[in-house]
Structure formats: structure tokens, C-alpha cells
């Protein structure tokens, strides 16, 4: 019994693998969509950032001034403020937290 389950399962695995290799080899885009692998298309823009991240080190100083210290408040102004989470929108929570403290 145990043996036959194992055998069947091995056949299933082999069959799935062969079919998968066939599917991946075909240029059929419909089957690609069915895979449940949803490709992310944020990549091309990311490429521009790769330059900065990859070539980040140099021997130059900078004329950009870092304004350190008290001027910085924990207030977010980015896109997180447009996304609801179960805990609420980003910046509103932050402002509340600051008033409390």
C-alpha cells in the first residue's frame, strides 16, 4: 500500500515536472499567466536607481548640506499617507504620536 502511494506520487511528480518543462519551453503567454507567477513591472524604472546603488562609492566630497537636528520632525509626507492600513494612514498616526509625546 505504502509502496504504491509512493510510486504514484513519484509518477505524479515526474509528470508534473515534464509538463512544467514543456510549458516553460513554450512561448505560450496564456500558459505563463496561468502559472500563478505574476511578473512585476516596476523594473525598468528601477534600472535607473541601480546605477546609483551599484556605483555609489567615490572619492569626492559633497556640497550638499545635511541639515541635522531639531528641524526634523517625525512627519511623513510620502505615498504611505495615501494607503490605508488597519492601523490607519501613515502621517496622521505620526502626528498624533508626536502630540502625545
Amino acid at each position, binding site marked *: 500500500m505504502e509502496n504504491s502511494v509512493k510510486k504514484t506520487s513519484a509518477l505524479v511528480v515526474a509528470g508534473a515536472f515534464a509538463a512544467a518543462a514543456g510549458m516553460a519551453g513554450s512561448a505560450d503567454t496564456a500558459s505563463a499567466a496561468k502559472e500563478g507567477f505574476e511578473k512585476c513591472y516596476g523594473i525598468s524604472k528601477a534600472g535607473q536607481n541601480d*546605477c546609483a546603488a551599484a*556605483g555609489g562609492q*567615490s*572619492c569626492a566630497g*559633497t556640497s550638499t548640506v545635511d541639515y541635522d537636528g531639531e528641524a526634523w520632525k517625525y512627519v511623513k509626507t510620502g505615498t504611505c499617507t495615501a494607503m490605508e492600513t488597519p492601523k490607519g494612514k501613515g502621517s496622521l498616526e505620526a502626528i498624533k504620536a508626536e502630540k502625545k509625546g
Partner: protein
Amino acid sequence: MTDISSWLEKPIPARAGVGLKPEHFAAILETLPDIGWFEVHAENYMGAGGPPHHYLSRIREHYPLSVHGVGLSIGGEGRLDTDHLARVKKVVDRYQPGLFSEHLAWSSHDDVFYNDLLPLPYNEETLATVVAHIDQVQDAIGRQMLLENPATYVVYKSSDMEEVDFLREVVARTGCGLLLDVNNVFVAGTNHDYSPQAYLDAFPMEHVGEIHLAGHAESVDDAGKAVLIDAHDRALVDQVWALFERVVSKGVRVPTLIEWDNDVPEWERLFEEAKKADKILEAAHRDVAIAV
């Protein structure tokens, strides 16, 4: 696998080159511009693989290359980071550059890396440390290195040697060569109120194996005096071109690099700067020919 033996037959010519930026990989490979050579920062090619190595290998097939380290902390009092030295060696072994250079500066203290080129006092004690570090680097990579004069903003009270004398002594004790950064001479001269011309006249030009040229930013200190920042974020000022001509007029004909690391312009704009440096080098060659 790329045949690196052909690279060794292409030493870096006494022409202009530029610092290679990822933003320009594609333009360079498409147009294969008539430029003498490229320089890269070793630390940007220390990953295992990926696009940086892919593009640098392809560009290396067409051009001579120099590798410039920015993280060895040769001027630091502590021991060199031997892991980092091994990584530098790996980059040098892989790309077989015509030149390898580093800075008279420190960037690590204890276990922290500060990602900036920080100044050291010039005295017997620091001289001994720098000499030991350069011996160690040259032993590790199995070749001569060039040491670059720094752009500095402060002076140590404990310095009792001139920078030029310090460099001369390092060369005498280690056999290393020098990388003369002409913009750094102008920046440091302005920041410390000395004559860049006089500095250059005292510089041991016979040991210069490479020249750097770059733009700088301008600021003022609390006393209202000009302070220049070595920002590599714009074109050279005329005074630095003039200092370069002064160096060339002393008979120095070595690979000359345009550095532009921040606010990097389009390839064509950078290439223009290199052509300008090439014209100065060519004019000097012509003058020599006429004199003969």
C-alpha cells in the same frame, strides 16, 4: 573566458581618460569613443557578479583601465583591513589595470568605516605608519601603487612636515609612485592660504604616474575666507586648467583623468572635458617636436 593577456600589452597612454560611471556604460559601448582610458573605483566592483562586472569586462576589452581604491585607509593609525586588501587584490587580479592608486588619507577607525577621505598629521610617526601600510599593499597586490595628495580642510597642530616633503619621503622609503591631483592642490592651497604654484614647483614630478583633474564647490568659513570642497560635481575652473598646463610644461606627460562623480553629466559633456585635457597634452608634445 576573456583573454586577459592582450590587456597587458595595452599600458595606459599619456592621454586623457575619465572616471567610468554606470550612467555611461551604454553610451560608451555603443559609440566606442576615441578616449585614452577609463578609471574605476575598486569598491564599486567588489560584488560577486551582475551588471557592474558585465559592463566593466566589456569596456575593458576595448580600453586600458586604471583602478583607484577609496577604502583602504592607508593614512589610518590602525592596521589595514586585510579582508578589504584581499578584495582589492581580487579586483586588480581580475581586471589587470595599468595603474593602481590610493589616497593619503584615512577612512576607518576602530571598526567603523566613515566613507570619506579624512586628513592625517604629517610627522615622523604617521610617516612610519603610512610607509608600513604602503609596503603591505604593494606586497599584497604584487605591484607598485600610486599615492594621491589629498584635498584637506583643516590642519593638525601636530604636523611638523610639509605635505610635499612627506610624500617625497614615502616614495623614497616604499618605492611607490605618486598620483598628482591638481584640483586637490588648488583646493588645499586655497583652504590653507598657500600658493598652489609653489606647491607644484616643490612636487617631485619625476615620481608622478598619473594626474587627476576635477571640479570643486565653493564655500566660506566663519572668518569669511574661501573654503573649497572637492566635490567632483562640475567642470574644472580655469585656474586648475592653468595649473595643469604648468605641470605639463615641466615635462610631465602621464595619463590624466577627468573625475566627475556627483551631478554626473551626459557622456558627451564629460567627453568634451577629456578632449580639452588631451589638447593640452598634444600641444605639449608638438612643442617638444618643434624644439627638437
